[in-house]
């Protein structure tokens, strides 16, 4: 019998197969909405919600928060809300809408320090001679000493504050306390006597305090001062559309004569609360985006820059609905030193009571490491924030204080100590959860989305066939990877849906609804997940696809261009280190 041959002999093939491999590992670009994602490098992301570039170069789900102190209660806020917070001498100083001032220690112990102020909608803080000065633009400034005793800022010689100005903004520069934001004199600087915080113009001698009018220096926009800052040897004064650089400490005889060195037009600040000094530069928010001033290397001149070019459209869209009052009082920033991040927050509604979210435009910035990336932090609703001397960040909503996580305090969920999510890493639709049952609670899960730009594998017109996918990850969180092909992100279809009143449309059809239309989708779990029976509580029977396995995951789809979208909700650590992709390149025939 003739033995059958099922297959014909094949020709000798070269050792390497036609399957190619690509590895993505550089994600330093961050969030980019300015450029078309059909033309973006994979180091950028079209969406990067609640993800950030971590210190080790990976993309990590942002840190969560842990409850520090619930200040609701008759003995503390007593119906008032938090206006602003500041860190001073180991305590978080809180100013309430009632005007009361509190200090909170790391263990949550809260003490009322002052009740002399009236209703307050704004507060600014500055340190002078190891004492904290607080201004609210309504009442005379307060002085908190190192032992936290708080009283009005007074002239030490007369113990009177009759000449102490009332202003919204205060800062310390070159041994001078500078106050501005007087509603009656919107472009005036009140500069104290040198080396004393409470001595102002008209106080008895010795006194070189001076009031300085800036209106005649400003050639663009209105002359209303919106903020103060101290940058190296320059006092920086902001209006909406100008930045003035002033040198203090110049005397004509015994008269203090501040000198305006430069006026930078077309750059300004919408709020004193957005001004953040970083040492080498200073960042602030205006209506267009986030700007910065820095010192030129050789000339020493201060030069402006717009650091948020790549996310300006999103920033403008978020800021535009806000009125002047919201811009001045409710947009704020904080420097997260541990993660090299400048965090800028913008509320999503002009009315405070209707604000459901404060969107975070997070700038991860390190000149030495050449990192300049923005990220989009959501699912928060903060009123204020401050940084501690240990580099930690404290957030505040209307009634509570929270610690933000970091490498040493790894909070992977939100509102730890206040809520916990369900065992499947979900929560109630209103963003709350169950009451915590133990100290081991993970808090509420953090939803995240990472949408990479369209990729053509360096051959735009050739068809490709994906064959396999893999990840290098760390942590134990779960995520879903979806792949979209050929510029098809959504499937627009008519659905039989209903109006809000429950009635069907007369023609039997409903609104068009766009649904994501991936060509391939798979859930995975991060590389440190140890499998059923080994992991502690909240173990899911059946587990998921471990990304620590070096073997292949078949991932088949034909495309000319493709986009990956990683998403999920997790209260566990999760970092993406690399994305591995196997594919074959075909011809131009689709």
């Amino acid at each position: 019998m003739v033995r059958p041959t099922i297959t014909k002999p094949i020709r000798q093939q070269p050792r390497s197969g036609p399957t190619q491999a690509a590895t993505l590992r550089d994600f330093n670009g961050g969030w980019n909405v300015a450029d078309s994602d059909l033309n973006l490098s994979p180091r950028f992301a079209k969406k990067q919600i609640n993800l950030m570039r971590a210190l080790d170069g990976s993309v990590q789900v942002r840190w969560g928060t842990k409850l520090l102190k619930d200040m609701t209660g008759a003995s503390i806020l007593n119906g008032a809300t938090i206006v602003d917070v500041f860190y001073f001498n180991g305590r978080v100083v809180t100013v309430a809408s009632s005007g009361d001032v509190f200090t909170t220690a790391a263990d949550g112990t809260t003490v009322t320090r002052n009740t002399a102020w009236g209703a307050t909608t704004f507060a600014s803080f500055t340190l002078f001679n190891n004492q904290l000065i607080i201004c609210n633009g309504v009442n005379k400034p307060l002085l908190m000493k190192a032992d936290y005793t708080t009283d009005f800022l007074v002239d030490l010689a007369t113990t009177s504050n009759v000449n102490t100005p009332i202003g919204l903004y205060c800062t310390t520069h070159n041994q001078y306390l500078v106050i501005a934001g007087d509603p009656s004199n919107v472009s005036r600087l009140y500069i104290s006597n040198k080396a004393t915080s409470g001595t102002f113009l008209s106080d008895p001698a010795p006194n070189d305090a001076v009031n300085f009018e800036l209106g005649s220096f400003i050639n663009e926009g209105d002359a209303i001062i919106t903020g103060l800052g101290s940058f190296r040897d320059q006092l920086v004064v902001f209006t909406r559309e100008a930045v003035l650089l002033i040198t203090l400490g110049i005397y004509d005889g015994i008269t203090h004569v501040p000198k305006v060195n430069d006026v930078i037009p077309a750059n300004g600040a919408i709020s004193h609360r957005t001004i953040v000094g970083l040492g080498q530069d200073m960042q602030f928010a205006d209506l267009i985006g986030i700007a910065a001033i820095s010192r030129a290397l050789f000339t020493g001149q201060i030069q402006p820059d717009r650091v948020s070019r790549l996310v300006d459209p999103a920033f403008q869209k978020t800021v535009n609905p806000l009125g002047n009052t919201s811009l001045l009082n409710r947009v704020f920033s904080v420097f997260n030193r541990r993660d090299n991040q400048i965090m800028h927050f913008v509320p999503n509604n002009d009315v405070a009571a209707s604000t459901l979210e404060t969107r975070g435009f997070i700038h991860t910035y390190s000149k030495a490491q050449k990192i300049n990336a923005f990220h989009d932090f959501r699912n928060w609703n903060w009123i204020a924030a401050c940084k501690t001397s240990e580099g930690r960040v404290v957030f505040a909503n209307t009634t509570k204080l929270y610690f933000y996580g970091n490498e040493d305090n790894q909070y992977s969920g939100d509102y730890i100590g206040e809520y916990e999510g369900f065992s499947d890493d979900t929560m109630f639709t209103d963003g709350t959860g169950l009451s915590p049952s133990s100290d081991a609670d993970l808090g509420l899960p953090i939803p995240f989305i990472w949408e990479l730009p369209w990729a053509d594998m360096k051959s735009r017109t050739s068809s490709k066939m994906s064959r396999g996918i893999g990840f290098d990850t760390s942590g134990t969180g779960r995520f879903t990877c979806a792949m979209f092909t050929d510029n098809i992100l959504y499937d627009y279809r008519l659905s039989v849906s209903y109006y809000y009143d429950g009635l069907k449309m007369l023609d039997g059809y409903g609104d068009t609804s766009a649904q994501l239309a991936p060509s391939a989708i798979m859930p995975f779990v991060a590389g440190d997940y140890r499998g059923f029976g080994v992991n502690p509580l909240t173990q899911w029977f059946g587990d998921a696809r471990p990304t620590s396995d070096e073997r292949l995951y078949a991932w088949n789809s034909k495309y000319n261009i493709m986009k990956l979208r990683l998403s999920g909700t997790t209260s566990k650590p999760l970092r993406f280190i690399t994305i591995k992709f196997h594919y074959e390149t075909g011809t131009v025939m689709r």
Partner: protein
Amino acid sequence: MPYQTTANLVPRIIRRLTQVPGTGTQIYAEDRILEILKEVYRQAARAYWWPDMMLRFDVVPDQTSGIITSDLISANGVARVENFSDIRSVFYNDYPRPLAQLPGNISTASLLTGIPGYLSPLGYGEDPTGFRLFKLVPVPSGTVNLHVLARITPRNIFTDVNVVIPIDEFILINGVGYKYCVEDGHNPAAAEQFRNTFESELAGAIDEYDSQPIPLDTRTGSIPGSFMDPDLYL
């Protein structure tokens, strides 16, 4: 017997292809592997008259149409003959030689008389149940018994993952591995290895049956060592 079910084979093939194993893990590979498995099974099943896949049936042709009156389905209902080409031989009563297939150039079948008959495959739409497959031509007069030897196919093979596939597991695993590797553009040497193993396993399985020392003729007595041609001695 080294036979496995689809439920066992697909995960083993996945592991053999160095993909991550697990129930429902390779959602983009399992369906492809199953389709390729069907192709390899079909090729291997037709490569030889595998004794394990042969079954004998006793059927009676209808005295009007000549179509056999019972389905070619196993007594326990788990296997059936699917095509006319799966029939290896049909014997008529105690006639010593198997029946032949009706030639295509016969003008009138009714002219065929006085012979046991010929096999004629049933045409499209002619098979009342789909499992009768042939008829006797010409129609017999009187009751006739037909003894059929045919290759069976397990019922619900591949649709029920717990049905045993009656082909050697290593033939199937390596056959699927070869085709999958070629389609995926894997290392050609790996594809070549799968192909070589598949062909050698298939050839080896056939060899085993061919060289098996079970005698085919058990008659006792001497067999003549010479013969005389009567025409030479007229």
